[in-house]
């Protein structure tokens, strides 16, 4: 049974990864970041970002403020930790959105073929031909401050929501292409042909047999692209298109670049180090996950 095989595949992958100490170390870092993000979500112990202390702004490192304070007198260490929440949330939402779009479109295109396949291929080829960051900026620009009325529910796309959408709407191309190729490969395999022959419906074939068999690709792409989304959020915010009123790494780098002239290095450094560590951990872990789940893909890069 295919699902049985998938379950074994996951157990086997975990067993393989557990032997690698570096991978486990990176996983620990990721878990730590997730922990920090969850802490930031609870808000316990965090300063109020709508409160300033202008008698103690632009301070250097001290016992009370380990990494000093920024121009509004807000603690830089806490900003860095809070930045984890923003980065991980944006990356998770965007990666999920991209994964859903990519999987659905990829499977549909691969399975049905014909005009549907051509349409989807045309769509992702067009998107892929536009340089990523430009496309992302264009989406973020267009989506920013857009207002929607959905089923009587009114909402406005402020900074961070626009970033979610922009990243999700531009990020699905790679996964879609991969899934489509894999589905085409599986489409004519015996077990699918057999399922068809006994009259299993298309939707059941898709969801019961095909998607579980290509799902490892979704996981691999998700983990490898995750770090890309974190970077994209930082870049968008740095360019003034992303998060506005709460601390984020991009905003810290943006502000910190200017503060550097006054000798305040903490903001820039803290954000850069935070980004470096999580990027490093995610890359190593993502690579290990890929190797464990699908050794054929080793070295291909996604």
């Amino acid at each position, binding site marked *: 049974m295919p699902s049985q095989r998938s379950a074994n595949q996951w157990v086997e992958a975990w067993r393989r990864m557990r032997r690698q100490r570096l991978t486990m170390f990176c996983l620990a870092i990721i878990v730590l970041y997730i922990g920090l993000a969850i802490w930031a979500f609870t808000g316990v112990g965090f300063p109020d970002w*709508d*409160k*300033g202390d*202008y008698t103690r*702004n632009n301070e250097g490192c001290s016992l009370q403020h380990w990494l000093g304070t920024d*121009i*509004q007198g807000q603690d830089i260490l806490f900003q860095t930790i809070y930045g984890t929440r923003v980065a991980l949330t944006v990356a998770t939402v965007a990666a999920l959105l991209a994964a859903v779009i990519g999987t659905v479109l990829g499977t549909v295109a691969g399975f049905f073929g014909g005009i549907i396949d051509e349409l989807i291929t045309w769509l992702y080829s067009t998107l892929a031909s536009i340089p990523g960051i430009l496309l992302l900026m264009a989406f973020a620009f267009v989506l920013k*401050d857009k207002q929607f009325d959905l089923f009587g529910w009114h909402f406005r796309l*402020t900074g961070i929501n626009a970033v979610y959408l922009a990243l999700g709407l531009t990020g699905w191309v790679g996964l879609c292409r991969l899934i489509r190729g894999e589905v085409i490969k599986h489409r004519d395999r015996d077990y699918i042909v057999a399922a068809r022959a006994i009259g299993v419906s298309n939707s059941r074939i898709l969801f019961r047999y095909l998607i579980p068999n290509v799902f490892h690709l979704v996981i691999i792409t998700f983990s490898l692209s995750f770090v890309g989304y974190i970077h994209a959020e930082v870049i968008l915010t740095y360019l*003034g298109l992303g998060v*506005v*009123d709460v601390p984020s790494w991009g*905003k810290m780098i*943006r*502000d910190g*670049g*200017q*503060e*550097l*002239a*006054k000798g305040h290095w903490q903001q820039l450094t803290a954000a850069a180090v935070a980004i470096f560590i999580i990027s490093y951990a995610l890359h190593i872990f993502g690579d290990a996950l890929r190797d464990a789940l699908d050794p054929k893909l080793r070295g291909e890069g996604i």
Partner: protein
Amino acid sequence: MKLWIGIGVLAALFAAAFIIIPMLSSSGDDAGEMVRHIALGSKIRGLDPQDIGDTTSSSVGSQIFETLYTYAYLKRPYEVIPLLADDMPTISDDQMTWTIPIRKGIRFADDPAFREGRGRELLAQDFVYSWKRMADLNNRSTNYSAVFAGYVVGLDEFRDYTANNNHVDYDREVEGLKALDSHTLQIKLTKPHNFLLYWLAHLPTAAVAREVVERYDSEIANHPVGTGPYILVGGYAGKSSFSMIRNPNFRGEHYPTEGEPGDKEAGFLDDAGKRIPFIDRVEWSIIEEDQPYWLNFLKGNIDSAGIPKDNFSQAITVDRELSPDLARKGISLNKFKDPSVYYYGFNMDDPVIGTNKPLRQAMSLAFNRQVYIDTFLNGRGELPKGPIPSMFPGYRTDKVNPYVAFDLDLAKAKLAEAEKIQGGPIPPMRLALGGTDTTVTQMGKFFRIQMKQIGLDVEVDYMTWPRFQEAQKTRSHQLFGLGWVADYPDAESFLLLFYSKNRSPGPNGTNYSNPEFDRLYEQAKGLPSLNDRIPLYQKMEDIVIEDCPWLITHYRLAFILHYDWLKNYKPNDFANGTLKYQRVDMALRKRRLKESE
């Protein structure tokens, strides 16, 4: 053999890339051309003089377009002198008819819009046309209401005629605006206009040529063709840098021979009587972020600059003087009071903020101005009292404005009143700021934090300067941050911002309206003597202070730096197009740049 040819070609290409191209690109400076380098902190909104209302566009446009009058470059107090006019206006005894002779032989810059591409002579008719353009509602000029509305016989009727009329007939006669002959202009007024002379020295009344406007139509803001000393090369739209070169058709004008005491010693009269302009080419760049702007100045890539807040301590000592490091580089400092006031405006048309005076007062009380000035301006601001800055006659040192104090208890009490009027909690508000750079976002956050102190939520929208201005014209801001620099040396230049007939798209951006204020304003405008006007100005100021359509933050103290290779650089608050007086010592510049390498 082929290999050697290939290598030879590659070597030649490298030579071109690394030796010849850099030589070509710097050839301008080496060819003995005098070049001025200027950086602007925000994008240009447009170079249609009738529609220019912001200082950025004005600083560029005023090098291209000229007005009938201007301010003497060096003399203080400021004195109005003829520019395109041949003489001061002849004003009839009843003050109602102005006759202005126009200098002969002045030509527009060459442009394909003219016959055979050669700029034609400037005529009195050009002013009639340009001012009708300002009145034309289709052009949505920000200036008409302040300059001419209600004063020129028949011009308001012309304005009404342009409403709902896309094909305006500019030959339609306006009784109060006439070209008596090719070089004599006559203005007939409905009532005496004490500030008309000042307005005739202000860029929006500059002359444009009808052929040019008709040729470029909606693209006119990117095709400025004037009579001034410089012409724009290839437009500015969408560019981060652009150039101007000398206008070969520019008449012979001469550097002033008189100044104020001390000018001679300061070297401002060294070029007295010489033919101007001196500078051959002006290189403009738009640098919105503070740090690149500052580094470019330190590298000598721009000749003059303001000081970003984060570089202030590097540039200025605790005694408020220039740091020795910069002085050694040949930089000098000009400190002066700017004729300006900075504020956050409340849109009085807004259903929440416009109808709720205690709310506006509460917000004004919750804003800590001293911290703002210290944090974001390095102290380069004066605590304000009202809309009339301290350098203007009419300012009262003993005046107490109860709403510019930082008093959170009073603010909360006012907010409680405001909530009663609102009938519940105040909904979140939106503040628009005309910039997207780091400093502006920090200021936006500061505003948010200040309002949060009394429990008010404010969201900040950061937009480009052109977009901000467009939104202002259509009254779509709820709160907005802005400054106003006086157009002429009279406090009326600030009070006009509250006159109801100047509401957006006019300069009254808050759309404030108060009948008593209007009455006093109209009365003051009719009084020829400043001493008679001052008591009225003060009454008007009191009304504005109480109604609080502005959260005034400060009057600016300007700190401007420039290198010693830039000569004749004297700040002039009101004159337009002063680049023609400036000179660049290119040899000294080259030496200084070499020294600093």
